[in-house]
């Protein structure tokens, strides 16, 4: 997640160069980050005071602009996280499949049986094979063109660890995603509040001058 924060910082820096007058720094509208460095939108308690806390006081356009920028950054983060999540969701059933298979082999071994299988030889060609389960050995595909030999127990342990790690990852990314959604909604609400605040202020000054 570090790259997200740094990309925001970079975007912020370039914004500063383009518009030196509009110097609302990102730091002014965020309120720290969560444990994986996703910034947290600052909630505006009192818009009058918030605008006045800048020197000169921030115009509604400036505030809305700043929050819109932040909003689109969060949208980006949201998309990245959604992709990450979809990837994790896909990997868990794969691991579960492998676990099922190893369990099946273990069961066959206990029964002193051999497993008769049709395995995928090529795209749509299946070949028949008899697996001697008494050896208790299975090969696991570890990725990066590596396949290692494991005993059933070791394989099961490795796969279970992988499964719980994947589930933990999924939980983390889900948490990040709902955190990000919170920030997006806070941005949206802030923008509309600043807008309404401006309308009311203009109305008040119009009726004041009448």
């Amino acid at each position, binding site marked *: 997640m570090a790259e997200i924060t740094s990309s925001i910082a970079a975007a912020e820096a370039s914004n500063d160069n383009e518009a030196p007058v509009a110097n609302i720094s990102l730091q002014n509208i965020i309120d720290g980050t969560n444990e994986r460095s996703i910034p947290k939108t600052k909630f505006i308690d009192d818009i009058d005071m918030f605008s006045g806390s800048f020197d000169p006081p921030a115009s509604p356009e400036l505030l809305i602009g700043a929050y819109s920028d932040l909003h689109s950054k969060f949208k980006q983060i949201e998309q990245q996280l959604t992709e990450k999540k979809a990837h994790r969701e896909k990997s868990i059933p794969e691991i579960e499949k492998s676990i099922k*298979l190893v369990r*099946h082999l273990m069961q066959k071994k206990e029964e002193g049986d051999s497993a008769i299988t049709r395995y995928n030889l090529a795209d749509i060609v299946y070949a028949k094979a008899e697996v001697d389960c008494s050896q208790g050995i299975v090969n696991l595909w570890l990725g990066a063109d590596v396949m290692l030999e494991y005993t059933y127990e070791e394989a099961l342990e490795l796969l279970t660890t992988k499964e719980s790690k994947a589930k933990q990852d999924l939980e983390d990314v889900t948490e990040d995603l709902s955190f990000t*959604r919170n920030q997006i909604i806070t941005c949206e*609400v802030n*923008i509309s509040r600043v807008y309404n605040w401006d309308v009311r202020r203009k109305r008040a000054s119009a009726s004041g001058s009448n």
Partner: protein
Amino acid sequence: MPEANGMILSKEEENDNEVRREDQDAINEFGRLNARLDEVKRQVDNLKKTLEKIDDASTELMMGDGDAVMLSLGGAMFEATEDEATEYCEAEVERQQKILDKLSEEEAGIVERQETLKKLLYGRFGKSINLEA
């Protein structure tokens, strides 16, 4: 989800209640629940489809004539007796049904919580807020 610049209200419909921190939190929770609800619904649909498939398989097994069948496990087919296959199907149904029950429960919980939040937020902001999907 509350839309930023959704629509313009007439002056009478305007609501001057300020958004407090707790209101923001309630709005956030509502939005989050919306997203989760979609997700849960999707998963429930998928699970129901899987359960149907297993059910079909069980029916096929019952009508079979006792020959060995092929069980698809992790990308390969394994020969299994009908009894083994039936047992496998039953275990799968039980496992998936449990997940389905849990998700359905969560779905009901979300809907209920959203109702409470809706009452709260509409009570405070009236037409200034739109919580319909």
